[in-house]
């Protein structure tokens, strides 16, 4: 039972993820833009973050993750650097960086392909949460 924040500008994806996670016993809060999302990270202090890869621009998702994981000493998100981040991405995307996160380059823990496979998604979320305990 964890508090999960989902940042996605597609309300249908938000609903689908919410229903899936709630059926797995988690509490869900959502935000529909990177700005709102970063606000809610500070105010809600979630245990895990689900982030859509592309919102307004092709790099909005990555930018958000980079901000959260910033190594700046005086970053306002310093407390959340260890928070697990799952990135929702489209399969066969023509943007690079598709195969698996590389901690050197990518500030997320794992990718999950859209459309959602509810069972696999829940499994991934639970495993990530367990690894952080």
């Amino acid at each position, binding site marked *: 039972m964890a508090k999960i924040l989902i940042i996605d500008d597609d309300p*249908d*994806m938000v609903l*689908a993820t919410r229903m*899936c996670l709630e*059926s797995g016993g988690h509490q869900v809060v959502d935000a529909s833009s990177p700005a709102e999302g970063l606000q809610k990270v500070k105010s809600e202090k979630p245990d895990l973050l689900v982030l859509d890869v592309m919102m307004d621009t092709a790099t909005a998702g990555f930018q958000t993750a980079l901000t959260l994981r910033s190594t700046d000493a005086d970053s306002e998100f310093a407390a959340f650097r260890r928070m697990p981040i799952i990135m929702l991405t*489209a399969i066969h995307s023509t943007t690079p960086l*598709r195969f698996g996160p590389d901690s050197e380059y990518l500030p997320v823990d794992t990718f999950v392909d*859209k*459309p959602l496979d509810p069972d696999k998604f829940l499994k991934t979320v639970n495993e990530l949460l367990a690894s952080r305990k």
Partner: protein
Amino acid sequence: MENPLQARPAGGGNPADVASASTRLIWTRWAAGLLVLAATAISVRAVGLPLPERPLYLIGLSILAYNSLLVVLAPRLATPDSEDYLRRLRRFVILQVALDWASMIAFVHLTGGVTSPAIPFFGIHMLMVTILLPVPTPYFYVGLAGGALGLLSILERSGRLAHYNILPALPPGLFRDPLYILAVIAFFLAASAATVVLAADVMERLRERERQVAALLQTTQAISSTLSLPEVLQRLTVSAAHALREQRASIRLLDETGEKLPMVAAYGLSEAYQTKGPVVVRRSSIDDEALSGKVVYVRDAAADPRIQYPEFIVREGIGSMIVAPILGRSGPLGVLRVYSSRPDGFAQDAAAFAQAIARQGAVAIENALAHEALQREDQLRAQFVRTVTHELRGPVGGAQSLLRVLIKTSQASLTETQRDILARVEVRLDALQSLINDLLALAVSKTVGFQETATPQALQPVLHRIIEQIAAEATDKQIDLALDSPDETLLVRGTEDGLAQIYGNLIGNAVKFTPSGGRVTVHVAEVDGQAVTTISDTGIGIPEQDLPRLWQEFFRASNARASKIVGTGLGLSIVKRLVETFGGRIQVHSLEGQGTTFTVWLPLSETSSSG
């Protein structure tokens, strides 16, 4: 850029030409020597002329003798690449000329001295010397020959040398007559000098033509070996300047409005001159005239009233310039200017030559512009495809996700019919998503830019990943899925995505179209510098009549369509495109009802050590 075009002096400058002329001279000399012998024999025996036989035979034989020496010496002249080759070649030629001069004088002496009918033979020598050696050497030779003839006449006249009168009809004292001697020598010198002047002029023009042709060829090669517009323009300015034996040139191209002529390339010009100010076509009569198709030769740039910025002309030290129009297929593109520091500093045909160069330039510039336009279009198309698929994927993905979650969370409360309908909707949405993905893959494989992103890729890891992903499905259907590949990693040219597409499709199809309990084998081998992969299955096979159309977009074999197996019909067309883009080929063998084998050949990018 080096400038070999300017290094060659006029007249006898090209080592290859001099070498071949020298060889021809040697061959001509064989004939000359034999001719002397034959002519002497015939004149004495058949015609009965009072010739000094033995000395003449001696001359003929000595000509043949020193020619043999020259033949032996010729190949030892030093290798054609060495720096002093031309110098040694010239000295060799001078040696030949000197020997010929000596034998000619001797021959003239033996055939009557100043009364010899053989004196005109010197004309041949004059021509050869003018062809072989640069001015002023030929004139020097004229002086030497005339001087030798004069000396000979004086020596014979004073009795110190014998005189041979070979034409009995000639008055016996003729060779002593001072007027006769003077007249012969005067006409000899005049005729020889005239010959040299004319021959030198012809040689000069020939050499200049040769140089121009070579310059034009070099220019064409330089500018058409690149499709980058800045490269083309830069090379054109440099080539044009050197071709006209100058050090400064510039190119101005019409901008989109067609009213201004900004400078797009410059060679040898100062920064200040390049940025002096805009050239507006209507206000520059020189450029206006040029753009209408005429080459303009500005003889005295400093004093010409048509010049827009005279103070810059003076400061830059420009004396004269040629402005040649660059004419494209559908209109003028701009102008090419070549500058000289001297007023009236260009040769007569320089303007026409500049025009020829500008014409070549126009072709190369238009090619580069077309290439740029193509690349821009390609980028726009790729962007469009990406945008469209993203726009399509979003809604479909959202609908799929919701549907799946609905099905999962409301299993218990659904009726049979409701469950059935939801399942059908899910199938249709999955098919739609699949189609969108395939269309995107197909569109990407058709972009020109895609081909340029191929790099060496390890083949086996891609196959392993694909098989891992398909393993679950194979196990579900109890299909034996096996990979057999060599230990050493094979590197093929391609993209990671592309290879994943190719093998994902082929292996996925194999599992998809093989019924329960069947077998799919993937075999990799290195053969003749290619990675050969065979994907064989014991599936439903492909009917023979469908094989030719297998690679067509949206084509599905009749038995595939009849089965319940879903598919877009795009997979194989994508695979074939990708394989061919990576330089390989693909083949299929199949027996309906028994199985199918696909074979893919991909060229190896380089030999690799065991991985």
